[in-house]
């Protein structure tokens, strides 16, 4: 059994040697010296011819086992040494991750665009069309179709920039609705639209007035549209824009193009209705005007008001933005101070 003892000694000695190695080169030398053709194991195996036929396979099997054990130990050691080398290299590569990154310049969308995109996307999701129309309008569409014939006192509510007697800068985006309603084919379904865009009024620019501002008006016309539908739709809008917890309330008002007409208040998002400076201590903030489309508006567009009816609403993205972000001067939107604009980085 001396061969077996030799092998066992070889194994113990070899494992001890491998354990102590600290470089891949030395490890390779050990591999060659232990497992190579001139190494001790080969020697042992050569000596097997002197063994009995009975012992030979047992010793052979043991010798293979010893070789495998040593090979494994060498491989494991090799991995360990390589990992050490890599770790050292990585350590040397360490950088100051707190140094600033390479700047990427991305532009911002104007805050008014953000507000309008936000609202447009909401209504697109509810199956509305977004319809654009001319900023230079005919008196006919801007006023007459909207139930404000010449000499109507309500025209004074919307001081107007005229270009000729019959051509003007639109004072609201309602004329887009008039144009769309006039063309709409109800056999293809209801009319559900919003019309966003620039509008103009004869106002002197100050903190709360601008001769140019924006509007989004909405219109839904079909056979069974109710004022409850208006209320529900405005609730969706208010919660989408001002927060999930918002409530709305409607108050009677007057617009020539709707009847009934309402002003819409949203519960104050600043104080949750408790009362604060933002809501002038009422808990409510007036955000938009709305109502059921006046039968004359339906009729003026060539649609039968006995059969069709609907609701309309109009909101000011400028006002929405001012409320949401606490902007106190409407002129900020059009002066385009880059420091002002860059605040509004993320559209949400």
């Amino acid at each position: 059994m001396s061969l077996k003892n030799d092998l066992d000694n070889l194994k113990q000695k070899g494992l001890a040697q491998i354990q102590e190695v600290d470089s891949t080169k030395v490890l390779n030398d050990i591999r060659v010296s232990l497992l190579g053709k001139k190494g001790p194991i080969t020697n042992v195996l050569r000596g097997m011819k002197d063994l009995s036929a009975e012992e030979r396979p047992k010793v052979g099997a043991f010798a293979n086992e010893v070789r495998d054990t040593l090979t494994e130990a060498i491989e494991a050691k090799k991995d360990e040494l390589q990992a050490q080398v890599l770790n050292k290299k990585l350590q040397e590569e360490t950088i100051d991750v707190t140094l600033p990154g390479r700047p990427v310049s991305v532009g911002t969308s104007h805050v008014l665009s953000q507000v309008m995109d936000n609202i447009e996307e909401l209504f697109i999701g509810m199956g509305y069309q977004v319809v654009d129309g001319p900023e230079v309008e005919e008196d006919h569409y801007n006023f007459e179709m909207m139930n404000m014939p010449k000499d109507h006192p309500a025209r004074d509510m919307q001081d107007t920039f005229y270009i000729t007697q019959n051509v003007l800068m639109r004072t609201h985006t309602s004329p887009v609705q008039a144009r769309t309603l006039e063309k709409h084919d109800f056999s293809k379904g209801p009319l559900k639209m919003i019309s966003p865009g620039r509008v103009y009024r004869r106002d002197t620019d100050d903190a709360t007035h601008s001769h140019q501002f924006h509007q989004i008006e909405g219109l839904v016309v079909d056979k069974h549209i109710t004022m409850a539908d208006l209320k529900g739709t405005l609730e969706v809008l208010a919660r989408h824009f001002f927060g999930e917890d918002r409530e709305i309330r409607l108050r009677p008002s007057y617009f020539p193009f709707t009847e009934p007409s309402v002003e819409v208040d949203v519960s104050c998002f600043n104080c949750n209705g408790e009362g604060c400076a933002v809501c002038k201590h009422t808990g409510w903030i007036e955000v938009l005007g709305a109502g059921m489309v006046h039968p004359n508006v339906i009729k003026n567009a060539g649609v039968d008001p006995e059969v069709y009816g609907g609701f309309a609403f109009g909101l000011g993205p400028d006002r929405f933005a001012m409320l949401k972000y606490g902007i106190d001067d409407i002129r900020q939107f059009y002066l385009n101070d880059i420091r002002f604009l860059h605040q509004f980085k993320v559209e949400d």
Partner: protein
Amino acid sequence: MKISYQWLQDYIKLTEDPDVLADKVSRTGIEVAGVDYPSRGLKKIVVGHINQVEPHPDSDHLHICQVDVGEAEAYQIVCGAPNVAAGQDVIVALPNSRIADNVKIKKSKMRGVVSQGMICALQEIGFSDSVVPKDYANGIYVFTEPVTVGEPVFKYLGMDDAILDFDITPNRADTLGMHGTAWEVGAMYNEKPQFKKPVVTESQTPARDLLKVTVENKAKVPAYYLRVVENIKIKPSPMWLQIRLWHAGVRPINNVVDITNYIMLTYGQPLHAFDYDKLGPKQIVVRNAKADEPLTTLDGVERTLTTEDLVITDGVAPLGFAGVMGGLDSEITDTTKTVVLESALFNGTSIRKTAQRHNLRTDASTRFEKGIDNASIQEALEAAASLLTELADAQVAKGILVGNDYVAEDTVVAIKVSRINHVLGTTLSTDTITDIFERLGFGVKLETDDQLMVSVPPRRWDISIQADLIEEVARMYGYDNLPSTLPVVAMNPGKFNPQQQFIRRAKQMMQASGLSEVISYGLTTETKATQFLMTQNDVLTKLDWPMTVDHAYLRLNLISGLLNDVAYNIARNQTDLAIYEQGRAFTKTEAAIRPDEREYLAGAVTGLVKQANWLQTKQAADFYYLKGIVDQFLTAHNYTGAVTYVPNEKRPEMHPGRTADIYVGTQFVGFIGQVHPAIAKAYDINETYVFQLDLTTLLTLTSERLISQSAPKYPAVTRDIALLLEKDVSNEQVVTIIQRRGGQYLQNIQLFDVYQGKNIKLGHKSLAYSLTFQNSEATLTEDAINEQMAKIVDHLKAEVHAEIR
């Protein structure tokens, strides 16, 4: 209109707290802008009786008054008012009292004399200058009716009232009178208002013997009634009347004027009183004014009339504007003895035009413009006449003089209960709806359980169609009680149209390229509107009547707005800017009235586009920076035509050597370049690069249909080539030759170096290109590429005299 809570109680029983009432009115009908409690915040202000007045020894205008304020000892109060006198009952602010504007009054010494408080003017306890009777405008107020010394003054001056400020929309002029307001508030509380019918006691003198009346323009004067009232004693009105006026914001003048105002506030019916003795011929003729006829109105302004103005005359000269303002010549004065009272209905549009033309908006004109209660025109006249007998000891001549008679009728509107519910989305019963109409004072006749005939009295002239009645139901039922639903309709997909999508993507690409969006004004100056034109044929549009020269013309370009923004920022030390705007340019052809509105996209960069930091050196904006952005945007659309940049030295606002017109195929789509230094100077800005693209045109261009190619299996081969060229050979020329001679496998030409200067012949430059060849079917052979390169080189030599370096 300012509504007195106490006055309202003449007509309806109210116990509601005025603030709660105000909120309810706001939620149900008319916005209440605020509630004013005149005595709120005031303290220790009592009635005093002046026993004695002596001049102050050390002052030429102060008086030392001994004032009984209901205590054992009289108070000594120093007073500077010129009208102070012994025997007066006055307003006394006691020591430690609080008067208007939260001012505290203390016991003090005035020029050495102890003063225990202050004798007050009305303004000092919170009255507006505009309502204080003229007699007391510049001095203390003196009570004219019995008061109890030592009592708080508030009840004597009506200051224990609450005043609600009704912010009336144009359709609710019915609440411009207390009767209408009482109907409105009564309906909310289910209280039917009670009104007293005026009773006139007439004298034996027939009015028609005193005065003749003619209305010439009956179309514009549907109703015209006069009464003649004789033997008038002009004097101040009693306290109760003065109080009602000043709460409404009207200054008490004398009994006659006050009564006309009071009746107007009560009925919403403007009245006018003429001094009968100042009429030339004893007649009233209502007619259109003659051109350039003069009239001096009550405010002392001399006006020149037009034939559109409706006037009241004595047959000779105008006595006043109909329904707007009376004339100075027939004004009621202290010596007036006989009065002609007028109650009429004038055409609202005519009144509005006159008021506008002469810039003269009055309480009367507002009411005629917005609509009065046609059913109470005569009653208002009777009420005024009756009050004149009571308060001016007058006799009312017998009979009403009628210039034009008018019978007001209810408006009957047929409406179905089911219709109301259909529009509101409710399930209200016939009873509920009938009750609402009846509370509003409308008559309801049930034709069937569903079909109602609603009679609307003339005071609610705003109601004439079903929608108007539906609004009444909605607001009285309460908007809070309406259900909340979403429309149930056939569903069509909601989506942006191609133009909207294109514009949204364009904006996103600009932002991704580092440009920030701005929104400038569409209206600008003539100069700025006409700069940076796409084509010189664009015609300008001007506002008919601009407010300022800064916003008088519709812009034909977007760049001038961007440069305004650049200037604004540079003035605030923000010198590194990269901005864009997407908006409309109002281009027009000569013949058109309305401009086309073309969607433009424009950008501007100035200053640094990269700041120096620890990783990179700073980089200034230049032509190629902006061109990179524009080119990326244009080529991304994969247009059928190639995107080319053609030098244009003729754009007047642009640098002649650094400007290119941009084409897609043969279509001009915009331009890019450096702003001309002279223009930059005019804007007060630094070196700035701009571009402007016509998106409306771009949208009409066709794009190659994209068919996916699989990633190449065989390697590409790259060859570099450096050329020495004469200076004015352009990159485009070289690229065109390479493209044309590069063969079918040439995939990409990359310019990687441009050099000029040292080691280069004078008047020459070096351009170096990297050419990539690829065959998707097989690996390219060296020989094949060499052959192709040789061909390219030959042509470069021949066509642009290139030397290979």
